[in-house]
């Protein structure tokens, strides 16, 4: 196997363009996903049975089917129907960019909702009771106690989900988008140097992952700052 390193440097600007689109897809779909997940999770933890049904079915569908199938259903599937092609939604649904954003957002929302549900349910009972004892209303309690605590609890798992979405976003290349993977495949179609170009793309993915991990470290520290010692504990052993 002869390695041709030049090909990486020649095509680096294109790969970085692709990386930018990948970041954009993950970021925008991630933000929409978080917003969607909030009502889903709250309905899911509701004590009313009928409110639980929709988020249960939603989460069951989006966690239970592959992302590739979902993106094909939205992009190739929906466009088969005249009703959709003639509807007001078509200007959005005809764009592969929006199809990818919509699919990724719906997909990640299901996972985040489930993380959020778990986090809400694992808040120590005493904290909720204390809030109630202070006479907080449910919306106030949600804003001041439940959600901030839940975000802190779910943050490490959510960081994981964002990284999974970063890698899942490679599927955007199957609907003509030139994200990092799509760009790499298009370059390889001309140069026939899969090892070199995929290696370069892999390293760019690693760098983006590292940035995401760093960002979530900071977010974790922010949301869980009450759990950290203000000052370095000293001589703890000596006191015993």
């Amino acid at each position: 196997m002869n390695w041709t390193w030049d090909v990486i440097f020649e095509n680096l600007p294109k790969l970085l363009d692709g990386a930018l689109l990948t970041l954009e897809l993950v970021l925008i779909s991630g933000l929409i996903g978080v917003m969607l997940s909030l009502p889903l999770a709250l309905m899911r933890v509701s004590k009313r049975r009928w409110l639980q049904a929709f988020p249960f079915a939603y989460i069951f569908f989006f966690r239970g089917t592959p992302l590739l199938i979902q993106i094909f259903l939205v992009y190739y599937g929906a466009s088969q129907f005249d009703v959709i092609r003639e509807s007001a939604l078509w200007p959005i649904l005809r764009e592969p960019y929006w199809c990818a954003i919509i699919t990724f957002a719906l997909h990640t929302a299901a996972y985040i909702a489930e993380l959020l549900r778990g986090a809400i349910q694992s808040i120590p009972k005493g904290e909720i009771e204390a809030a109630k004892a202070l006479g907080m209303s449910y919306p106030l309690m949600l804003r001041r106690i439940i959600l901030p605590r839940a975000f802190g609890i779910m943050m490490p798992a959510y960081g994981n989900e964002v990284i999974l979405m970063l890698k899942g976003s490679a599927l955007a290349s199957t609907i003509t988008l030139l994200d990092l993977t799509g760009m790499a495949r298009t370059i390889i179609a001309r140069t026939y140097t899969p090892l070199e170009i995929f290696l370069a793309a892999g390293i760019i993915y690693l760098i983006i992952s590292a940035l995401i991990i760093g960002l979530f470290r900071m977010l974790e520290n922010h949301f869980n700052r009450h759990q950290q010692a203000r000052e370095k504990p000293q001589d703890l052993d000596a006191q015993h």
Partner: protein
Amino acid sequence: MSLKKALAAATLVAATVSAPFAMAADKVRIATEGAYAPFNFIDESGKLKGFDVDIANALCEKMKADCTIVAQDWDGIIPGLMARKYDAVIASMSITPERSRVVDFSEPYYSNSLIFVAPKSSKFSPKSVDGKVIGAQRATIAGQYLEDNLADKVTVKLYDTQDNAYLDLASGRLDAIVSDQLPAYDWLRSEDGQAFEFKGEKIDIDDKIGIAIRKNDKLREKMNKALQDILADGTYDRINAKYFPFSIY
């Protein structure tokens, strides 16, 4: 152990090891894509069928080789050959200088040209393409033609398979596609292709289709010989007639 004995033992070992290889028929693994009707496709029963597959089988018969034909996604088909996952690619592959740098090709086994396909109801003309959205399959001659000749005038969309490009032509996301003429001819005759037609003249790009083989593999000579044989004895014409009412050689 004397030198003589050692030599004898070594010869014996060598003979035992090499015997099974010498006796069995040559094993040749051939890859095709399986998503390029009527040249190669997977039928209802999950079997690989089509012109390429028939040609591959005919060649194997002439070479007296024991062949297995596998399906492989298009954009990984040359990397797979180079990685020795199989020994030959018979998948309607155009002989291009870019590909010839990494693999060897047999003599051509048919010729192809490109053509635009658009809905019958559309006024699309290859003469005025400015601002149009045009699709093709990624890593194909059609895709390269678009990128090389029209990239500054049109929006180019590249698809993983020809079928996905057809789907997006039907959905209206594409104004037209550039496609190899022969499979498009077949598609236009199918139920899905009824609403579409060729636009403009075919684009002659001197596109010859060959069998890709790893660089310096002796298999190339055998393939060429077998190809001559099936052209001479009428096998090729019989296969041709199964798919097209005109000669595609």
